[in-house]
């Protein structure tokens, strides 16, 4: 009910209209242009959890960086809450695959960083950061440096930093890809819990099919370059998904195998091209 009302009254959290982006790869004299995104139209609703999956080199990361306005598209518009944007803004926050923590800053200083950029008073920034670090159980490590923490803990810092900005949209680039399998499952649960409690919009890149299906309201499958949206699949599984093992549900296995069959073709083609 609530979701439907929100969808009717609010513009999409993020909307992409006709996004094109190409890169020039210079290899000595023969520079060639590579199409990374070839006309992407996409609307992501408020409070939606969308995962993006696709073969490597399909432009997933480029797509996310365009959504973050870290790179500007050659053509097309990015709209946040219905308004076009052209530079990074406070409504979106990123979580990075390799955590993106400043190694010379302590945990708390990493989390306050975006707030200090916005010129918040130090005490206020610290208070906000502390609140988020406590939530992910890192209150004992606020004065540690990132290299003293495990990968899972470092990404909790990365997540805290994104949440502390108060952004409504989290842009996550394979955030759990560099974390060991068991910790990853805990992180997935934690993320789902936070997403549900705080009503965030999450756009989440992954190369892990299980993860893509388990977390998402919708899975966006991209096709091998030039980057296009191949299919968007609704995941019909009840929430909260933290109380039970989603993976044994029939809907889960069916969605997963449907995705895998689509993805598999691309991978086979890709391999054939690479060997010729």
């Amino acid at each position, binding site marked *: 009910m609530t979701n439907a009302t929100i969808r009717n009254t609010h513009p999409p959290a993020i909307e992409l209209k006709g996004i094109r982006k190409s890169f020039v790869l210079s290899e000595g004299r023969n520079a060639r242009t590579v199409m990374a995104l070839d006309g992407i139209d996409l609307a992501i609703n408020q409070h939606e959890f969308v995962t993006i999956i696709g073969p490597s080199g399909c432009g997933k990361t480029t797509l996310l960086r365009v959504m973050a306005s870290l790179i500007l598209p050659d053509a097309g518009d990015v709209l946040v809450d219905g308004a076009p944007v052209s530079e*990074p*803004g406070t409504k979106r*926050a990123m979580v990075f695959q390799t955590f993106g923590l*400043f190694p*010379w800053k302590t945990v708390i200083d990493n989390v306050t960083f*975006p707030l200090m*950029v916005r010129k918040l008073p130090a005490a206020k920034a610290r208070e906000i950061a502390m609140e988020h670090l406590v939530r992910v159980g890192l209150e004992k490590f606020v004065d540690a440096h990132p290299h003293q923490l495990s990968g899972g803990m470092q990404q909790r810092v990365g997540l805290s930093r994104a949440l502390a900005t108060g952004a409504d949209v989290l842009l996550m680039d394979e955030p759990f890809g560099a974390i060991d399998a068991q910790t990853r499952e805990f992180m997935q649960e934690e993320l789902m819990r936070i997403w549900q409690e705080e009503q965030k919009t999450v756009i989440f890149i992954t190369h892990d099919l299980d993860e893509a299906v388990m977390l998402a309201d919708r899975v966006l499958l991209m096709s091998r370059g030039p980057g296009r949206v191949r299919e968007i699949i609704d995941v019909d599984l009840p929430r909260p998904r933290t109380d039970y093992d989603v993976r044994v549900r029939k809907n889960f296995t069916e969605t997963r195998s449907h995705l895998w069959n689509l993805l598999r073709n691309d991978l086979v083609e890709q391999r054939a091209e690479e060997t010729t």
Partner: protein
Amino acid sequence: MKRRPNHEVRRDQLIGVAVFLTVWEVSAQAFDKPLLLPPVSAILAALWELLISGALIKALGESILLLVAGLAVASLIGFICGTLIARSKTAYWMLNPYFSALFVTPTIALVPLVLVWFGFGFTGRVIVVVLAAVVPILFSVASGLRDSPDDLIEVARSFGVKGEIQLLFQVRLRAAMPVLMAGLRLAAGRAVVGMAVAETYLRLGGIGGLIKSYGAVFQTDFVFAAILPLSLLGIAIVTLISRFERRLHWT
């Protein structure tokens, strides 16, 4: 190799110094040519005399001022040119040969030029220190900034840091800090050499001046008594930078 505990290291160092000084004292007494090798006791007496007369303090003050001024100017020039070289290929190819040449040219060979161009006053002396120290700073800035921390730049941009200058100060320089400090430490060692050269070959002054003037009248015990604080000054400044370096290092 197993790391030795601090107190053992200190004990060995103390024993080493004691043996060395005793051998020196005994052989100098037996040799009995204080012009060539003054005994340790005579050197200590000379040092005491320099201390209470205030000559040493005054000389040290002059030398430290020269050293700090020289290092500050060298850092400024090294920072600006190093940033240019790191960020622009044109600047790199245009400027790099000169600095490479300067790096291998003994500072003392440039003293006559400094004398003609800048005179033997404070300016000239500072310039000798700068010539000695600027290249390690410049090279460390250049190499520290060349490995661009692209992922962290992206993080900073995503959280609203705008513009090259902001990124330079908030990310690039801070990421390069360990390399910069290593360069500064190297530069400090060379600056001490430059300082001694400036003080002995331009106009006598500071610790270098003390050494030169006592050497000229063959008061070898006083020469030793002045060399000792010069070495200590060098060690002190390098240790100070190392301390700072360790604090800025994150691993």
